[in-house]
């Protein structure tokens, strides 16, 4: 049977993501939104495996598989080079994992934001170094089990959306791959703006988070509906807008559905709940007052 590929898709099937991968899902959606007139930079992460190896490429657009910590700097190089070729329309999109963004790639990202480079930077957050087998990083949330935090991580999670917002770039937004329309709308919004745009994509990982792979849509949606991971955007460091009002489902529906959190005690849950509530209240307060940093 001959199958006609969906023209909206900007990547091909047959890639090597794990079965049930929330990151491949997010990548598909981001690429749909950026469109064909784009150039991508991918760095070592699960994304690089999804991109594939020579002589194949999963992407329908030109892509550079750059060095780990250079997603932002490589994308900036391309963006500037295009300007010297009098091309202001081609969209340059940097695609990195959470480690490549909040850890090793942080410097280049901050530098690019400081220079307000005209790129869309997408961080695909599966909350650990998953490609290398689930080691902890600064995006791993508190109490999470990883191979290098067998007793659960003691520290918290770096809030990249806020950090990027503090750079006062035109657009910094949180998204989740399990809210497809919200993600696509935000990427398309980023496309309209000039300067640095940061999109954080929460990407549930069945392999690392330890849940049955088919439940990826539910895990992603529960993260948002329990207020654990709010969906919102910050413009120019000032205007905060919440883009999805959650259903207030119980936090443990999200956390205890994942093997990486199954050891949580009641006290741990309370600690997390307190943090979640505090963040949400702060967020709603800022939305009302157009809080300035």
């Amino acid at each position: 049977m001959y199958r006609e590929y969906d023209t909206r898709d900007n990547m091909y099937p047959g890639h090597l993501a794990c079965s049930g991968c929330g990151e491949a899902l997010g990548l598909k959606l981001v690429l749909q939104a950026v469109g064909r007139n784009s150039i991508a930079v991918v760095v070592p992460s699960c994304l690089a495996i999804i991109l594939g190896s020579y002589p194949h490429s999963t992407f329908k657009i030109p892509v550079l598989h750059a060095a780990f910590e250079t997603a932002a700097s490589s994308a900036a190089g391309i963006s500037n080079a295009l300007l010297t070729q009098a091309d202001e329309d081609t969209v340059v999109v940097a695609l990195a994992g959470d480690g490549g963004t909040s850890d090793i790639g942080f410097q280049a990202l901050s530098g690019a934001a400081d220079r307000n480079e005209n790129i869309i930077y997408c961080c695909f957050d599966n909350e650990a170094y998953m490609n290398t087998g689930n080691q902890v990083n600064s995006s791993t949330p508190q109490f999470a089990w990883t191979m290098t935090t067998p007793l659960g991580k003691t520290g918290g999670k770096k809030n990249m959306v806020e950090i990027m917002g503090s750079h006062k770039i035109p657009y910094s937004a949180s998204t989740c791959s399990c809210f497809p329309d919200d993600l696509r709308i935000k990427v398309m919004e980023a496309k309209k703006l000039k300067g640095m745009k940061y999109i954080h994509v929460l990407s549930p990982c069945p392999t690392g988070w330890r849940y049955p792979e088919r439940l990826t849509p539910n895990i992603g949606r529960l993260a948002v509906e329990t207020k654990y991971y709010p969906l919102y955007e910050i413009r120019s460091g000032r205007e905060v807008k919440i883009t999805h009002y959650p259903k207030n489902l119980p936090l443990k529906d999200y956390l205890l559905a994942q093997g990486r959190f199954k050891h949580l005690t009641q006290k741990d849950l309370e600690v997390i709940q307190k943090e979640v509530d505090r963040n949400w209240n702060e967020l709603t307060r800022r939305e009302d007052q157009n809080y300035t940093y």
Partner: protein
Amino acid sequence: MRLFLSGNHAAAYGARLAKPQIIAAYPITPQTPLYEKLSEWDSQGVLGARMMKVESEHSAMAACISASLTGVRTFTATSSQGIALMHELLHYASGARVPIVMVNVNRSLAAPWGFWSEQTDSLSQRDTGWLQFYTADNQEALDTVIQAYKISETVFLPTIVSLEAFLTSHLMEPVEVPDQKSVDAFLPPFEPVFKLDTNKPAAFCQIVSQSEYAKFRINRQMAMEDALQVTEAVDKEYEREFGRGYGLIECYHLNDAENVLVTAGTIGSTARVAIDELREEGKKVGLLRIRLFRPFPKTLLIESLKHAKKIAVIDRNISPGQEGVFCEELKSALYSRLNGIPVFGFVLGLGGINVSPEHIKQVFDITDKMDNAPVNPIVDLENKNVSGI
């Protein structure tokens, strides 16, 4: 046009005349005047390139690599800690076969901290697959930068052009600056076949299998080998156009020399003074200054040194646990044909200590008097601090 320029500024002119489209750089002593000169021209609207004032050398190299893969000519400059920070990406750039030209101002590496001339920083990168030139004066710096673009864009390998901290970077000399039109005629625009292009989508720098990887590496080695005659041809063409050629090596009083000094960089320039003086005393001495270090001009060296009785090498650098790099590489190059000639290794000028014509005469003297060349380098001319024969 003849201008009184520092090495930094001369190199800056070289870069500007080559008309790169993207310049990504980060300041580090003693490269800063070069970076600042480019910025000044940029602010005056005469630079032509788009400058990316990035937040580290690593990002500078990353930006140059991706910009180059987008099909534009790129330039950067750094020194010491900066080139060390780029190390990972230097491998990447040559593996990606992008013709970046980078000026490196040789400066000693921490720890401890020093700011003066030492060649160890760029020599530490000798395995990264970049072409390397070591210049001895500001004119050579300017001319080599322009030549480097033509060579790089022919063999598709990046090039490092080295100056020396303060000895050439800040020293001012009269320099002949060619006019833009002549340089345009010599160096056409960069138009690569393969580039990131939405009209021809492709993936660059993918994961490869073992055998494919080996293929890429062997190809790169072959390009390096080609670079020898390409460098020679470009240099000859440059000489025809601009009246100045340098060759892969500089030979000074080499033809009938019995004791030959091999060195690179400014020590070569100082050596000419010493050799003049020794020649007046009737000593049959000569100089071979290595200009092109990578690819290493082995055949040429064998050919040029075959009549020498003794060879002394002065390295303003050291690979700890071995010896000076130029000495080591020379010995390795000569071994197959000229292993009868004793090679005396001297490591002088580490950290930017001044190497005077007196020191060089001492080197010749020691070389002349010693029967057998020591295994380890001589690091102290007074005490001849040497271990082992």
